[in-house]
């Protein structure tokens, strides 16, 4: 009660005319955003400008927010990205279609499998390549395993944001990492790599499943499933955890759609949208996933959606490995040289549902050489998630700001590319 009264005062101060000293840059182009209209704060408004990041323990990489604080309450938050820009899209214009897979692995370094999948699916659509059924099932299996690993990491880092690196948060963090390790071991078994797999190629998979892989998958999934009640006790069922997350950072479903937010964040805001079900790709037409929707739109709902998706993905992985069809794993000619894939015209867009939302790849063929694209654009879900910050952070405390950022689960490698 007391807090809401205080926020109202702060926001009123912000809207007084003398506070607005310089208009935000976007005003030049005629679209003034009320949430971004202050560039410099007025000293008389008694606000503190806190540069939150890029070197800060809770910014999930190198991300910066400028927080205008009244006491400890955030009046205005402005996100800044670009500290991890590596010109991946430009690099992709120079590399051939075959060479790009290991590059995009490093975009979303928490879920590399889905990065590769998105890129190669776009190239397959461009080159009209049919993917064999076994390869599609393998892609689905890998994507769901990756979803478990990614959500486990999101849960662990979110706990660190709430509980600190030297406390209960890190206990859960290390426990979720222990289980994530099991999935990385499975991927290592298939590809020989733990993070940057380079296992998807145009037309299918590079590595087939090793003998006895299904038993190992089942063993790992059983262990992870048995530990889920333990995580629930430490997070979604924990009283302090609920105190910190329920009602914090509420994101309206309509605003989320306007900002282009997808994935668990959108589903937590009450919008029933999942590309796996709505626009099935790979083997999702046969393995229909259950879509979790929460209506609250707060940090707790976002965590809840991810938490439940882990359970769903475990079930889906079991179905995928049990029903894994036999057959070839690549429907394209075997890779002999990097210049083997050629396209002179055409443009395609393919979007898939990664653990963070819709990861899209837009390719325009016909670059300097037919073996590389003219332009390649990656639509990353984390970038859109960060766009919510100016809207949902005002009114929260600094502690809440950390919780809100953690619940958006941004991966800076994917945001900046």
């Amino acid at each position, binding site marked *: 009660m007391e807090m809401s009264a205080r926020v109202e005062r702060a926001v009123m101060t912000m809207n007084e005319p003398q506070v607005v000293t310089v208009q935000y840059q976007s005003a030049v182009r005629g679209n003034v955003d009320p949430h971004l209209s202050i560039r410099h704060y007025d000293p008389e408004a008694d606000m503190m400008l806190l540069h939150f990041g890029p070197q800060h323990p809770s910014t999930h990489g190198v991300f910066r927010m400028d927080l205008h604080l009244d006491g*400890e309450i955030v009046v205005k938050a402005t996100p800044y990205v670009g500290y991890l820009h590596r010109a991946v899209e430009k690099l992709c214009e120079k590399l051939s279609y075959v060479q790009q897979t290991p590059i995009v692995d490093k975009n979303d370094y928490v879920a590399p499998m889905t990065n590769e999948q998105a890129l190669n699916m776009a190239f397959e659509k461009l080159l009209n390549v049919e993917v064999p059924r076994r390869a599609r099932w393998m892609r689905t299996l890998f994507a769901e395993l990756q979803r478990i690993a990614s959500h486990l990491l999101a849960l662990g880092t979110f706990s*660190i944001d709430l509980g*600190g690196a030297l406390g*209960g*948060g*890190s206990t859960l963090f*290390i426990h979720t990492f222990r289980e994530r390790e099991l999935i990385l071991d499975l991927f290592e078994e298939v590809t020989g790599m733990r993070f940057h797999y380079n296992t998807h190629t145009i037309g299918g998979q590079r590595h087939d499943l090793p003998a006895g892989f299904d038993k190992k998958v089942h063993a790992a999934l059983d262990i992870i499933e048995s530990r889920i009640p333990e995580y629930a006790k430490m997070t979604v069922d*924990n009283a302090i955890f609920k105190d*910190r997350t329920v009602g914090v950072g509420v994101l309206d479903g309509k605003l989320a759609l306007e900002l282009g937010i997808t994935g668990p964040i959108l589903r937590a805001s009450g919008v029933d949208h999942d590309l796996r079900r709505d626009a099935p790709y790979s083997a999702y037409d046969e393995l229909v996933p259950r879509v979790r929707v929460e209506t609250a739109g707060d940090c707790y709902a976002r965590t809840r959606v991810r938490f439940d998706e882990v359970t769903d993905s475990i079930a889906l992985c079991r179905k995928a490995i049990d029903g894994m069809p036999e057959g070839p794993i690549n429907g394209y000619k075997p890779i002999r040289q990097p210049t083997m894939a050629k396209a002179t015209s055409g443009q395609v867009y393919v979007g898939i549902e990664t653990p963070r939302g819709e990861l899209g790849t837009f390719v325009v063929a016909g670059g300097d050489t037919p073996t590389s694209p003219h332009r390649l654009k990656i639509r990353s879900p984390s970038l859109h998630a960060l766009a919510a910050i100016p809207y949902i952070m005002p009114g929260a405390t600094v502690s809440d700001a950390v919780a809100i950022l953690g619940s958006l689960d941004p991966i800076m490698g994917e945001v900046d590319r």
Partner: protein
Amino acid sequence: MNATSAIIHGAVYGTIICVVILTGIAVAIWFERKFAGRMQSRLGPTMTGPVGLLQPFADVVKLLQKEDIVPRDADRGLFDLAPPLAAIASLGAAAVVPWSPKIIAADLDVGVVFVLAIGGLMVVPTFMAGWASNNKFALIGAMRAVAQSVSYGVPLVLATMVPVVLAGSLSVSGIVGWQAQHHWFALWPIIPGLPAFLLYYLAMLAESNRIPFDIPEAESELVAGITTEYTGAKFTLFYMAEYVHTMVGSAVASALFFGGWDGPFRPGLHWMVLKTLLIFASVYWVRWSLVRFRSDQLMALCWKRLTPIGLGLVFVAAAFVQFWPGGAR
């Protein structure tokens, strides 16, 4: 005991107790690391010395070797004064803790008041550090620390008043002696006794900035809170002061609620150390299990829940002494 011999007694015992506590802190840090390691399914320190026992000493050597950086715009005097003051304030309370019937540096008649007063002083170096650093994160941390320490001082005082009322003494050794003759307050009378201990425990966690009440440091929010700008020896003093504060708080808890040095078969010192370490270990158990509160929730918990409960407990204790047959001393 005349004045001269009292001073000599205090100096000798005080030095011994300080040295023993500081060595004990080193072992406690090792213990916490091992404990946290086991809770997180890892091993903790293993490389330095047998089972990593020398790790705290290696840490201290590392910290002392670091460059002593003072921010250009810092308030130099306050910045330098805060860490030693924190160490003094946290160690000072150990003076009146009876480690055995004989081992006590200063047997004050108002020992309980002394403990509360000198523990309450911790807020001064904390705020000095936050202010003098000239850092926004440190300032927010200091602001939180002042609000928290001042608020939680109230339930802390109310909780310690329960054994004071029950034993009819303000001297820590007097309260322990009363419990040794009669019964431990955590066991009987169980209604003001055990809740008062839990109240004291929560307030102690808050006063010594432990999770779930560690919002002045809150490294995931405020980088390192008040210690953001501190390095090397000065940081070591803050780090140590925090541990000493928790350790002395645990010792006071065991003296006030669990009969201090009272126990069968073994000398009093053994019992006192055992009880202190058990409470100390439980602090770590809590620390490595929970996430932290938000500052406004912390204030709400203090003023809306703990303070009324504390007032009620003092009232119950007074009623027990007055009306329970045999309850009066």
